[in-house]
């Protein structure tokens, strides 16, 4: 093989990651050399770095899709938009953390550095086009999030959450890697483009090897995106992690893993019977949508409820993924069933453009909404409650509307957006995604999706009912105030409504042809 020789120009397309990494290193070093007692400035540096990186990523999104870094990565609008959304999520999570950590007297420079490293891993994950690169980026992202999860060392929960996340994350990465090793054995390549070219021949020669490899890679990704039945770790990890970290995990980590999964499997289904990937993704979508919503139903712990809700939202995104793999030519007159495809109403090209738009808009909407929802929770929780274990009980939200109308209104807005009620971004996201799925012929599955999101409205509205219609308990906690937290919540709330009413040019940007390299 030829050892690749990289020049500086090769690295220009991944500039956003460079900015994030550079800022992370500056933060680490500043922790060594500066002995200031307050560290809000570090949050500001991290937030600025994510804005700059996001800006560069948006700029990159208008460049044509192409292979970069000598075939190890792909620069296409799909990955650039993901990077931009990851940066937006990091920006909000960093602002939330500043107040959260200060309140707990746990501000340390490495926290922001770890967040930026995680963001860099997420951005790189979305553009990886080679198995080892994919694995390394997955680990860059994961190792940083393991450390962030266990960051608050006081109390048993964060370390327990960190431990569970570590074991299952490492397990998933090992599955993915073993799958990649088997695919390498069958095709002799690790670059996705080369694997894709060699797959049809490999299928003819050793189908068992390829199927085992594909199955393992899929299982690895399914763990990362928390698809049912690979979701067991999610509630405990989301509950135990510091709340701003949970917000980053639910938005950024999931988005990056989704995009990487879509990219990998678009290359890996060459030569395979198209019904197989379609059925597998449809089944995952079905289980995840229904399972996530049903499991969230009995939760009184709001943070845990949001963890299950994030599983349900992964299910809606999986519906979009299933639509991408819908068999492009279905015989006319097929019956409508939950897991069957009906004939396409548009051309295959139109459908995949609509699906990419739906997926990206859904990820954007979920990012701002979930950051806002977890952010509000993070401002309401008190350290004294942690030992009693009812920090996030619904009762904590009782009467919030009388005590803090602004906070209650924001939380209500985020809950409505998660439930998909207009005029919020959550409604538009669901609309785009479900209509794209219907266009792709997934009528049955889209109906299940809508019905299960109706279940979801129940437990989202329950929080709103508690906030507006229950009297406040006497010892009700007041949310702590910190300007960065308020800035983050106001930004999320404005984006939730703004994007819900005037999505404007963003939908045009998301629906340009040539979104994904090679497709």
């Amino acid at each position, binding site marked *: *093989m030829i050892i690749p020789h990289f020049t500086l120009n090769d690295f220009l397309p991944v500039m956003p990651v460079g900015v994030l990494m550079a800022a992370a290193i500056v933060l680490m070093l500043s922790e060594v050399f500066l002995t200031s007692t307050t560290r809000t400035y570090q949050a500001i540096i991290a937030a600025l770095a994510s804005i700059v990186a996001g800006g560069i990523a948006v700029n990159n999104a208008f460049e044509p899709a192409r292979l970069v870094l000598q075939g190890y990565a792909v620069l296409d609008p799909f990955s650039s938009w993901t990077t931009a959304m990851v940066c937006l999520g990091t920006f909000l999570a960093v602002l939330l953390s500043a107040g959260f950590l200060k309140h707990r007297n746990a501000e340390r420079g490495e926290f922001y550095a770890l967040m930026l490293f995680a963001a860099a891993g997420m951005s790189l994950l979305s553009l990886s086009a080679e*198995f*080892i690169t994919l*694995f*390394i980026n997955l*680990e860059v992202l*994961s*190792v940083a999030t*393991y*450390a962030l999860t*266990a960051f608050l*060392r006081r*109390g*048993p*929960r964060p*370390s*327990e*959450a*960190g*431990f*569970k996340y*570590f*074991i299952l994350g*490492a*397990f998933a*990465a*090992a*599955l993915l*890697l*073993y799958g990649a*090793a*088997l695919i*390498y*054995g069958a095709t*002799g*390549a*690790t670059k996705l483009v080369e694997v894709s070219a060699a797959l049809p021949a490999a299928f003819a020669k050793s189908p068992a090897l390829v199927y085992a490899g594909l199955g393992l890679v899929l299982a690895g990704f399914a763990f990362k995106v928390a698809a049912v039945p690979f979701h067991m770790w999610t*509630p*405990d990890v989301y*509950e*135990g992690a510091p709340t701003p970290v949970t917000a980053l995990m639910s938005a950024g980590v999931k988005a990056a893993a989704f995009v990487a999964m879509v990219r990998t499997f678009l290359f890996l289904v060459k030569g395979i019977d198209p019904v197989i990937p379609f059925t597998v993704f449809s089944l995952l979508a079905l289980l995840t949508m229904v399972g996530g919503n049903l499991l969230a139903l009995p939760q009184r*712990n709001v943070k*845990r409820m949001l963890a299950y809700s994030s599983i349900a939202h992964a299910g809606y995104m999986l519906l979009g993924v299933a639509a991408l793999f819908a068999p492009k030519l279905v015989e006319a007159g097929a019956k409508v069933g939950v897991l069957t495809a009906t004939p396409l109403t548009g051309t295959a090209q139109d459908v995949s453009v609509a699906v990419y738009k739906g997926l990206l808009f859904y990820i954007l909407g979920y990012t701002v909404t979930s950051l806002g929802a977890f952010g509000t929770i993070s401002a309401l929780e008190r350290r004294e409650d942690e030992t009693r*274990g009812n920090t996030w009980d619904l009762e904590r939200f009782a009467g919030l509307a009388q005590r803090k109308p602004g906070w209650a209104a924001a939380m209500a807005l985020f809950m409505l957006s998660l439930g998909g009620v207009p005029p919020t971004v959550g409604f538009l996201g669901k609309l785009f995604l479900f209509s794209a799925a219907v266009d792709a012929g997934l009528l049955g599955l889209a109906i299940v999706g809508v019905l299960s999101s109706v279940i979801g409205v129940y437990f989202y509205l329950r929080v709103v009912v508690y906030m507006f219609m229950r009297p406040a308990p006497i010892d009700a906690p007041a949310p702590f105030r910190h300007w960065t937290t308020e800035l983050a919540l106001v930004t999320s709330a404005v984006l939730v409504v703004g994007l819900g009413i005037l999505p404007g040019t963003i939908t045009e940007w998301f629906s340009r042809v040539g979104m994904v390299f090679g497709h």
Partner: protein
Amino acid sequence: MIQTISTSHYLILAAALFCLGMLGVLIRRNALVVFMCIELMLNATNLTFLAFARERGDDLGHLSAFFIIAVAAAEAAVGLAIVISVFRARGTVNIEEIQSMKH
């Protein structure tokens, strides 16, 4: 006698190691043993990469193994730190006792 060991022997050994590791993660109760089982899975992957690389006579598999070893080391550092913090918080590394969150 070395020539009689074919690629498939290596692959079967690697698959056996991987399954052992996977079973260990799922059924063992000691956090450190679970941790070692994950390392076992990664090493089984390395062996698979190397066996295929040897069969094909290309360097890609060897290169991959080096990267995997490096990443596994970084992961082990963070993982052990987390196990230590669990032990400090609870005085045990038994997984069944690490269940404070309600379902």
